[in-house]
């Protein structure tokens, strides 16, 4: 009878049939099952982090402050910040248009923007090489002007922007979409141009989503690995960002790798907390 009840509850939840009412004792066994599964996942997610902290914390100053680590840290912060700024500059108009206008091919553009979020970063890296590499579509053109993109710091920024910018566009689009159009109309009627209306009304009101989008983009750029290593290579001081330095450190210097990993964990955690602060809905992906 009890087992039967449990099955019935499970069945009802699987099909989320709210029309069927159940007596209290029957709900309890579903609850226990849920709590058990939830605890398992939380434990699974926590354990590696704990392991990392346990190994990284006792490390000497040398692991944290050696030349490779500091170079990687500086490069990562610079490139991730540049990526976030580029995403803001070119992503904002895209987000606004997607939120406000209806145009032919909007669904295609929308999907295209989202694509890098699900694309394996290695594919992104290959694709970037095929576009901007020496033998890529635009490579010859760039070469003619003496510009070599691959394996430069610029390539790091390009790879990070490619992978991370969609996070900004998604979030900003949701933010712009939530600003009531009648406020923009009212601004126009008060004699203020569309351009100024955007800066004085739309952007300030969408600020929580814009800022949390920027934070997400920055964090994603900071963690970018696959596209960077393929398109920009792994040169210390030039293209070796923190994730790349961790990868190299696995063979050369595990202590630095651990130290960098812990820094990334702390930064990521901080970013998520910050997003929670600015955005009332927490982490939203559109």
């Amino acid at each position, binding site marked *: 009878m009890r087992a039967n009840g449990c099955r019935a509850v499970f069945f009802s939840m699987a099909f989320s049939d709210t029309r069927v009412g159940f007596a209290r004792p029957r709900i309890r066994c579903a609850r226990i099952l849920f709590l058990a599964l939830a605890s398992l996942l939380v434990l699974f997610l926590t354990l590696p982090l704990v392991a990392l902290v346990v190994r990284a914390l006792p490390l000497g100053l040398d692991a944290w402050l050696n030349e490779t680590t500091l170079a990687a840290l500086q490069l990562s912060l610079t490139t991730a910040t540049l990526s976030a700024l580029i995403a803001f500059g070119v992503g904002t108009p895209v987000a606004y248009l997607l939120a406000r206008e209806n145009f032919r091919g909007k669904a295609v553009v929308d999907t295209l923007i989202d694509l890098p979020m699900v694309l394996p970063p290695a594919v992104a890296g290959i694709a970037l090489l095929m576009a901007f590499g020496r033998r890529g579509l635009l490579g010859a053109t760039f070469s003619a002007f003496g510009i070599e993109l691959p394996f430069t710091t610029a390539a790091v920024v390009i790879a990070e922007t490619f992978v991370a910018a969609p996070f900004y566009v998604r979030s900003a689009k949701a933010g712009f979409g939530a600003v*009531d159009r*009648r*406020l923009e*109309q*009212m*601004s*126009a*009627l*008060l*004699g*203020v*141009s569309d351009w100024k209306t955007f800066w*004085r*009304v739309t952007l*300030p*009101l969408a600020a929580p989503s814009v800022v949390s989008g920027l934070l997400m983009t920055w964090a994603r750029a900071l963690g970018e690995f696959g596209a960077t290593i393929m398109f920009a290579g792994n040169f210390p001081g030039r293209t070796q960002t923190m994730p790349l330095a961790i990868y190299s450190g696995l063979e050369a210097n595990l202590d630095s790798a651990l130290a960098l990993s812990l820094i990334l964990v702390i930064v990521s955690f901080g970013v998520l907390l910050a997003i929670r602060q600015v955005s009332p809905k927490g982490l939203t992906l559109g």
Partner: protein
Amino acid sequence: MLSLVIHKQLDAFALDLRLDAPTKKIIVLFGASGAGKSLTLAAIAGFMTPDAGRIAIDERVLLDVARGVNLAPQARKIGMVRQDLALFPHLSAADNIAYGMTGARAAKMTRVRELLQLVRLAEFGARKPSELSGGQQQRIALARALAIEPALLLLDEPFSALDLGTRMELRRELKDLQRRLQQSMIFVTHDLGEAALLADEMAVLDQGRVLQFATPNAILRAPRNVRVAQIVGVKNILPAQVIHSNRVRIGARELETLATTFAPGAKVFACIRSERVLLVRRESPTQTHPNEMAGELLDEESDGNDVTLRFRVEGARLQPRENFDLQIDMPVYVYERLQLARERQWRISLKPNVLHLVST
């Protein structure tokens, strides 16, 4: 002169509005929701482009579809106050008012202070909209709209969301402000009392058309047709036939009216406003008027302020198809004064000027 010709075909609705109205007055657009009031305002503000038409304030043409004139909202000099979302939520009251102003900062500040005083909120400039009451928000919205010195101020049910007391107060203030500033206004409402209170002249809108445009008094006393009578709340609309210039047959009874232009035999409707019917005590010694009849009070209901009474007349009926003949409304205190709860038999007097005849 405010001149509006607006044609707009939507999926399930057509706006076909023509209106010439004086400036420096409060013009009320009155009608049920869906009558086309807000769409008309959208066209005037430039949020919606009509298929055809012309909008002009005195000599200034805002829109002339035939000539390709269509000013952007920014260039129209139109103020607007709407029911909800009146203010920019992220700006203080003062910044909201200053939003559309141009010129030097000091001059702006002075003007903002003047406007805050005008709407009697001098102390509230620093507050955010969320820190203001609904009535205060609407006052700030009004100040903001006036700040650009608009050629025309549009008010889209601005007081509907407010409580009754605040609504009454703001209506009075608005009317007073209009008189002082001589500001041209179009005020949209579905509330007949509000329309009658505010309007210098009002337009009755129905299904995208202006059915009648006149002073509230003229419309209430003499609606142009049955639809207008229904819209402006005439409760007794009785089928009638003209006998001669000042006699009609209603139901099986002949009644006297003021002289009309309808031809004898014409089928018309007699509109009788429920608050203009007189009740006379049976035993009172007044002379029996041809429009007087005995009646019995069938039922009554009250909303606390007014009582609605349904009467059936003795003898020849006025509305053979209904179970009552006349609806009468009166304030509760009159009801109590007349002791209607005890006395059910009355004489009903319909003065000739109470019967207003309209074509079908």
